């Protein structure tokens, strides 16, 4: 039995708005095993990116972590000082951000950005050793050594994403959070980048949280998948189960909404819209769109519990 490398407990995140606080992450708990690939899937507004940023304590106002714990190797990240947290980031838990185009500094060469990350985390190396380290990192992510001297605008989208991955793994973190790392890339390049990430993850024996909306990418990459809806985790199951025997009605309908390449006319949208986070419905958040909802669903919020071995869901009907 592998121990959890990361444990999120009862995390509650608000966005403060003039009209009051909006619950973006609604009492979420889950564990991440060492070397595991966990997916967090959800539609826009489901809170998946907010959850990822909250774990890293990178959420900016009006976002606010109201309660909860995030344990990484025996330390509750929520109790660390700002400076201690800054040191943990990258060294122990790193982010591959969404939209690599915007996360690199446009006026710094790639090697300077890599060296910057190392130096900021107390890695003291001679100029020559830094150059060598940069070359190794670039090679590791499948980039040619010449890229070190280039500026971001000289790189293609896939190359920029690889540069971001190089920064993220530069201090060999135990946990990598990848927030839609390939959403701006073409499918052929996406596959190559994800293959690179998979290889690095194995080399580092790191755990990965992949955040995204592309269920295909989840199916092909992760071991376990968490499905989010309106700020809540409605199901966490082994990824195969999600596609063969999804538990939660939302997961079932989400799977049915995916266009297949096997058979025409096999996908169906989910009627209705996600609820506005400001005024969540009472009871189960999915009940207004759920075809199986019963009276209890309208009044009582279902508990998130283990329905089958390793498969957790929050639904009264299970």
């Amino acid at each position: 039995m592998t121990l959890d490398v990361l444990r999120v407990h009862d995390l509650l995140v608000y966005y403060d708005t003039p009209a009051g606080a909006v619950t973006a992450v609604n009492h979420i708990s889950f564990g991440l095993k060492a070397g595991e690939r966990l997916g967090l899937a959800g539609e826009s507004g489901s809170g998946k990116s907010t959850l990822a940023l909250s774990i890293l304590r990178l959420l900016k106002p009006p976002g606010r972590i109201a309660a909860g714990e995030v344990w990484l190797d025996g330390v509750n990240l929520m109790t660390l000082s700002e400076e201690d947290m800054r040191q943990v980031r990258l060294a122990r838990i790193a982010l591959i951000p969404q939209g690599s185009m915007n996360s690199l500094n446009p006026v710094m060469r790639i090697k300077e950005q890599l060296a910057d990350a190392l130096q900021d985390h107390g890695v003291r190396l001679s100029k020559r050793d830094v150059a060598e380290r940069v070359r190794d990192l670039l090679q590791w992510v499948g980039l040619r050594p010449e890229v070190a001297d280039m500026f971001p605008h000289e790189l293609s989208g896939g190359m920029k994403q690889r540069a971001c991955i190089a920064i993220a793994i530069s201090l060999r973190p135990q946990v990598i959070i990848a927030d839609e790392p390939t959403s701006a890339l073409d499918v052929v390049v996406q596959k190559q980048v994800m293959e690179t990430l998979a290889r690095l993850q194995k080399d580092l024996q790191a755990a990965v949280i992949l955040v995204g909306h592309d269920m295909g990418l989840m199916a092909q990459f992760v071991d376990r998948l968490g499905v989010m809806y309106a700020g809540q985790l409605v199901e966490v199951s082994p990824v195969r189960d999600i596609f063969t025997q999804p538990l939660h009605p939302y997961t079932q309908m989400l799977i049915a909404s995916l266009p297949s390449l096997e058979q025409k006319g096999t996908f169906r949208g989910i009627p209705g819209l996600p609820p506005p986070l400001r005024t969540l419905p009472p009871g189960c958040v999915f009940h207004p769109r759920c075809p199986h909802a019963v009276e209890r669903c309208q009044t009582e919020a279902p508990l998130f519990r283990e329905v089958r071995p390793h498969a957790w869901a929050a639904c009264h009907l299970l």
Partner: protein
Amino acid sequence: MTTLLEARHVTKLFSSGLLDRHATVALEDFSLVIDSERPSITAVVGESGSGKTTLARLLLGLVAPTRGEVLYQGQDLQNMSHTTWRAFRRDVQVIFQDPYEVYNPFYRVDHVLTTPVAKFKLASSKAAARALIAEVLQAVGLRPEETLGRFPHQLSGGQRQRVMVARALLLRPRLIVADEPVSMVDASLRATILGALRTMHLERGISLVYITHDLATAYQISDNIVVLYRGSVVEAGDVELVVKQPHHPYTQLLMSSIPLASAERTWTTDSGTSTMGLQAAESAGCKFADRCLRATSPCLQAAPPLFHTDRYRAVSCYLYQSAPALAVTEMGKAFTGPAKLSHGDGM
């Protein structure tokens, strides 16, 4: 057969500066016919840089072709009378990729819906206009009371895009050119929007040119598909054939790269192509040759024509040179007729 819109030998070059000798070929010798009597759904699929957005802009007359012409009912878009232009503007509607830049941030979203109603006199009264607008908003899964009166920044990208689809539907056009209409929309709503477009096609006979990078939605919605690679058609024909048994090495690479949303892991550990990033120099030959595992010397000499490999498919690759060649303007010969449409789907 009368044509509604036709692209004939269209080439579009982009060059930067007066003396730039290295013009970028965005689209090369492209031809496509949209019939006015037999409505069709044609998907144009390609990755970024394949020229698919340039094609959309050419079909809409927003940019002029460098060579060749785009004809609306036989008249060149670049040289059309004001009256014909007005008819074209109503008959041919567009849904763009980025739903942000089409809005004026100072106007409420209602503006993009009320303007066409007024300009084209679509409603006889204010109440009728409101009812019409409410109907199209509901068709794309939006609640009118939560949408109207808002400013663009108050809506999500998906919501903004659905307002654009609603706007196109409002005008009851004969052709909609949709450039990545659902790439910024969530999965559960994608089906709703594509379903709305398909319903418009089936019930009102609107043709659709569906431009996308997503083969799965292209497969679901279209009858025929055109696969572009760096400005050239590599494979075209019946979507069932092209998607189920891709012939061109590029189509095959594209298909094998798609992360399938199923319990089966289809991604292998090695994709077989090593070329990353930087684009190869322009050559006279096949544009895919530098990435193709099956390229031989003829591929570098001259670009392959379309070979008519099956009744409903044409492939631009020398692997199929035993099949008869088709002129680019004859690509339509490899398309299935609308009779093959299956109507009883659940979208």
